[in-house]
């Protein structure tokens, strides 16, 4: 069924608002479970659902109305303390919210698909059954189930009816229920009023995906203040442009040629100032609080913990930390995998924890913070930690590494094995883990973001995964270098230091050129050779070494000369040239030429 909505704007508004409400709702519901007596929270949840219901009935989305209405009723009883919140009730409410999300996603997708609402509604209804106000609808114990069967044929009228029913106009639903009663009688046995784990599981999975799609990435909400600032800056820019045009025409007519240089100098300074302000503003507009990603985790953790039979406290810090949209979009998946791992592999069951002398409840700390021009996200658990021996054994068993390789590895390298595709410590593949994909996803996504992963591990006391990500991907500070007349740009974030050295100071160790740097030995890489540049300067005996670091690895890149530091906008090389080793992208220089951006990760990986 296609959506018949005359006012597209209205629909867009509805979708945007609903999406936002639903996102918040998940979070609130989880908080509610922790503090059920928080009346404000309760009211907020109630209001959100109510708003969604109102808006959807206004726009005629019957299915949505039906689900939200029943959810609202249950919430209402909770609010009036006629019901006490149990995990079972919460499961059902969450399932209903998921269903709502799926329905909204359908609407957003442009097509309303008939979905099975009845299963979820049936689970909601038992919690209404002792309600005096709605007794007429639900008084007999079997009634709720009948209602469930009644709903599909009566779809168009039902929402209106049940809405009234909520306000105690109970006569109407009755006839609707009466007819299907007979034919559906045998089926009534199947759905049990108490939500069993099995039926819960399946509907939960599918909508969860829908919920993710729901996150709206096509539109942005921007603070009006920021928009005003931006407008001001653009105004400035227009003025400067006018000034430039004026200057040029003055120059052409031969007015004051002597002052031209001076004026032009001033102009470019101002232009520089305005553009960098503008850049900051736009960058700020693209920034999103990391909360957008974090807020779905309490829900995930709760479900996982229940599935795994573990007790987990999720503590979140720094969710207000802002980072670029592109980064926010990419870190969701890796974080889910890391959190899953922390719960599944890291934390022990309550019994094991007690036996190990720990608290029954495990803690997972998810935190985000700015550090220089990086954002640091950490996932820390107080579980059993990672056992390097076990990792090494598993990797050997799976044939991912050889004995010799393992023997040569330090603890750190062994821990890094968990990122190998196909690696898993699980004997059996479950729907939660064991395929050996998760950590590979983590690594791939973090690499894509030019980020760094660090693992801190303490056997028996837990482990911590630290992700260091750049604030933005679009514009970076870079060091411009010349390699035999070709210009390359190295991301400044990975440059540790630069030095001028004489070629005589290079040593050879096992076919690898190295440089003695203070008390360490630094492997060297001649960019000229790696990139196959024609050697132009053969007679020079000094050159520059740019020391770059990726994670714990350091390497010196030999370049002909340093050209300076510049802020560059990264341009993709297109899909044909996207996988070049050691090249991360390109940028356009002041003179319009293209300069390639060196990808230190690729180089360090290749050299090690």
């Amino acid at each position, binding site marked *: 069924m296609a959506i018949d909505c005359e006012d597209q704007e209205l629909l867009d508004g509805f979708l945007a608002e609903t999406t936002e409400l639903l996102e918040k709702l998940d979070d609130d519901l989880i908080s509610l479970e922790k503090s059920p007596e928080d009346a404000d929270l309760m009211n907020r949840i109630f209001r959100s659902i109510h708003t969604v219901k109102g808006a959807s009935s206004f726009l005629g989305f019957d299915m949505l109305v039906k689900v939200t209405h029943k959810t609202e009723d249950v919430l209402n009883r909770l609010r009036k303390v006629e019901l006490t919140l149990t995990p079972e009730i919460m499961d059902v409410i969450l399932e209903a919210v998921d269903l709502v999300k799926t329905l909204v996603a359908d609407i957003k997708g442009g097509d309303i698909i008939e979905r099975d609402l009845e299963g979820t509604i049936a689970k909601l209804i038992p919690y209404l059954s002792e309600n005096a106000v709605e007794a007429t609808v639900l008084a007999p114990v079997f009634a709720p189930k009948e209602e469930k069967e009644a709903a599909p044929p009566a779809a168009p009228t039902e929402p209106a009816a049940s809405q009234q029913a909520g306000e105690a106009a109970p006569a109407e639903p009755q006839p609707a229920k009466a007819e299907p009663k007979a034919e559906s009688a045998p089926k009534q046995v199947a759905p049990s009023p108490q939500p069993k784990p099995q039926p819960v599981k399946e509907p939960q999975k599918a909508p969860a995906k829908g919920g993710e799609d729901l996150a709206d990435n096509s539109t942005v909400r921007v603070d009006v203040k920021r928009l005003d600032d931006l407008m001001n800056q653009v105004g400035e820019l227009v003025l400067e442009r006018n000034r430039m045009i004026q200057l040029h025409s003055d120059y052409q007519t031969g007015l004051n040629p002597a002052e031209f240089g001076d004026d032009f100098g001033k102009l470019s300074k101002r232009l520089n100032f305005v553009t960098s302000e503008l850049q900051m503003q736009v960058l700020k507009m693209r920034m999103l609080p990391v909360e957008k990603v974090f807020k779905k985790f309490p829900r995930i953790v709760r479900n996982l913990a229940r599935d795994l039979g573990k007790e987990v406290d999720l503590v979140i810090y720094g969710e207000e930390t802002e980072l670029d949209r592109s980064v926010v979009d990419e870190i969701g998946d890796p974080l889910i995998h890391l959190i899953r791992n922390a719960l599944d592999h890291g934390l022990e069951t309550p019994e094991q924890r007690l036996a190990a002398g720990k608290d029954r409840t495990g803690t997972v700390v998810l935190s985000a913070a700015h550090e220089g021009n990086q954002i640091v996200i950490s996932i820390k658990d107080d579980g059993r930690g990672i056992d390097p021996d076990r990792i090494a054994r598993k990797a050997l068993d799976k044939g991912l590494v050889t004995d010799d390789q393992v023997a040569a590895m330090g603890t750190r390298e062994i821990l890094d094995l968990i990122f190998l595709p196909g690696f898993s410590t699980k004997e059996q593949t479950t729907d939660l883990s064991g395929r050996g994909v998760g950590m590979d996803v983590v690594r791939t996504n973090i690499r894509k973001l030019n980020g760094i992963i660090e693992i801190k591990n303490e056997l028996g006391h837990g482990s911590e995964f630290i992700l260091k990500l750049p604030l933005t991907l679009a514009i970076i500070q870079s060091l411009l270098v010349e390699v035999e007349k070709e210009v390359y740009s190295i991301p400044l974030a990975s440059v540790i230091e630069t030095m001028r050295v004489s070629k005589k100071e290079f040593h050879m160790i096992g076919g690898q050129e190295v440089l003695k740097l203070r008390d360490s030995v630094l492997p060297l890489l001649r960019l000229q050779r790696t990139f196959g*540049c024609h050697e132009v300067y053969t007679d020079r005996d000094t050159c520059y070494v740019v020391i770059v670091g990726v994670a714990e690895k350091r390497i010196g890149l030999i370049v002909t000369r340093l050209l300076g530091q510049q802020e560059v906008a990264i341009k993709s090389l*297109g899909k044909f*040239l996207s996988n*070049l080793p050691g090249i991360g992208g390109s940028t356009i220089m002041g003179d319009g*030429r*293209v300069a390639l951006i060196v990808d230190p990760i690729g180089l360090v990986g290749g050299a090690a």
Partner: protein
Amino acid sequence: METALTKVKSEEYGGELIQLVSFNLEKEEYGINVLMVREIIRMLNITRVPNTPHYVEGVINLRGKVIPIINLRKKFDLMDTEYDKRTRIMVMEVVGELMGFIVDEVSEVIRISEKEIQPPPPVVSSGIEQECMAGVINQAERLLVLLDLEKMFSADERRLFSNVA
């Protein structure tokens, strides 16, 4: 009545007449569907990209967009020559990506009828891979090789493109 019929026919078959941009490579004339060609520009500064196949000349800045440049001479294993003032870059959209192709000279846009396109001869001597030849056009004074660049960048080759090190 008859005009109406032909119109329907021409719409159905994507037009009986097709327009080709003709260009030269080593004195041979080639044609390419005009709809593929975005623009034709003069030689620019090309930035070499390391570790790519030899026929990838590098990348250029096309009004703020970085696009790869392919030397068709090298691609077809023809003798490499110096660029001169007639050398052009034909910017085309191949499988959804903009790409530039260096050719010796771009001559004109010609209209031909689809009937004039003959299948390519079984043996091709000039080193052009058989698969990127869409056909041969035999007009009174000239012989035109019709190229299909989409085929040239078959999935296989595209993968190679990025992995050749």
